[in-house]
């Protein structure tokens, strides 16, 4: 199939950047989106041009490294699918595809389509862990967890931290990411001792990083490749409001 690509090119963080047009004439529909970009890059390298930089790692939808806003939707048109798992059969011969980096002040562009998402790491460092060594995996049933909470905690833990929620949000809010990371612990017994401190410090770090506020557009949930629900945001709001009132520690 023939495709016209419009790709964001930006030499480095300081460069202004612009959209550039590329023509691809023999894209196979079994290629993944990233393989299609690989083909483009091989072509560019042969022509002695600078290949397009983009993030990727596992290419099987579990690491959260791939990004890309494709035709205005982070991770492209297919629901619950990362860019690396998106296949070209979702597009038609003759299509124009606009490819842009994830946009947010807290995700500065490093080069072309690669953005710096280390703001998420710093939010995790602020409280996205259990503060003591818990040893090896405990025996099954030694710590009772209700089936409902175990399932919910798994739903939250499905977050791969790709940042699509931020990219999709008109406010560049990171609420879905932070809510997922807060909730995976808040739902389990191991998370209880640090529960209040955790939500306060992670939310506080989220704001320091320059993410926006939530307007309940629910756009994050719509693009999340792991279908994390905005219900976790409601849950985090509840936790946060309650902790602001009851937690003695100043955060």
């Amino acid at each position: 199939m023939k495709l016209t690509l419009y790709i964001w090119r930006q030499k480095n963080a300081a460069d202004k950047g612009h959209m550039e047009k590329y023509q691809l004439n023999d894209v196979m529909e079994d290629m993944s989106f990233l393989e299609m970009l690989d083909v483009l890059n091989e072509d560019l390298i042969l022509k002695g041009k600078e290949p397009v930089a983009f993030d990727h790692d596992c290419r099987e939808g579990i690491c959260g490294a791939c990004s890309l806003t494709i035709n205005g939707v982070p991770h492209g048109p297919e629901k619950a699918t990362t860019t690396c798992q998106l296949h070209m059969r979702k597009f038609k011969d003759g299509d124009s595809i606009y490819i842009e980096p994830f946009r947010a002040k807290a995700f500065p562009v490093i080069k072309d389509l690669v953005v710096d998402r280390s703001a998420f790491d710093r939010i995790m460092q602020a409280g996205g862990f259990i503060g003591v060594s818990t040893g090896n995996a405990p025996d099954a049933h030694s710590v009772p967890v209700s089936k409902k909470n175990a399932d919910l905690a798994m739903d939250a833990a499905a977050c791969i931290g790709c940042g699509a929620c931020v990219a999709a949000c008109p406010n560049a809010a990171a609420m879905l990411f932070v809510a997922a990371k807060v909730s995976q612990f808040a739902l389990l017994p191991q998370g209880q001792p640090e529960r209040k401190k955790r939500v306060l410090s992670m939310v506080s770090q989220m704001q320091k990083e320059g993410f926006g506020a939530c307007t309940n557009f629910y756009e994050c949930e719509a693009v999340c490749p792991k279908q994390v629900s905005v219900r976790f945001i409601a849950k985090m709001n509840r936790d946060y409001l309650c902790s602001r009132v009851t937690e003695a520690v100043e955060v």
Partner: protein
Amino acid sequence: MILINYLKSTILSKFVMAVTGIILVLFIIGHCIGNMQLFIGRESFNSYAYFLQERIGELLWIMRIGLILSLIFHVVTSIRLKFLNLGAKPKKYEVKNYVKAKLTSRTMIWTGIMIFAFVTYHILQFTTGTIYPGDYNRTDYYTTNAMSVKKLGSDECCTKSREATAKDAIINYRGNQYETAGNHPIISERHDAYGMVIHGFRRPIVAILYIIGMILLGFHLNHAIQSAFQTLGYNNPKYFNKIVVGSTVLSTLIVLCFISLPITIIFGLVGGGV
């Protein structure tokens, strides 16, 4: 500055948006139901207006101050959040496709600002009488037998009580809606809120302005009501869908209720005798 410290936290800011928003929504529901008395008639509407203005005493000002404070906090917080959010996404996409964000949710600040302008106009017209003093300064004369007087048990409700002549009554009651002055002596007067609304809405420009204002309010509330539940942490898979539907139903009902007044009045279906 403890009062505005909450602005430092986006979640607390949203909490303030939701709580002040709900206070305003509750007021609007009450206002809407109160307005429906216009369809019962002049007597009912004016005695209701009189009740609010003169009979509840300090409560009126407590309510007014509560509402004004809610509106101020709501507006200040929303503007501060808007600037924060614009700053968090300095570079927009060349191409943007929304999957779930609706027109209503993306235009909250704009519908909000227009509602604020509308509310200012509304108060200047119907509360202070600054815009059409002629409409505002109307008097309603009524008899001891008027329904509101009967209900309240006496005519003591009427502080502005005075001896009026039967001639006043004939001038003011061309429609002959109550018993004639001959049967029951006219004794009192009060602000003719009914006449004010009817004459106000007979001006096409005013009627249109109100209809537009209320549709904007409907847009705002369509997103706002369910959003407040989410912000306050009430989102449960069992009933959240119903809250979203309820938000649309309630906001639509509010709009229909409010715009039924200018529409029926401009077409002469209500208030023909005034």
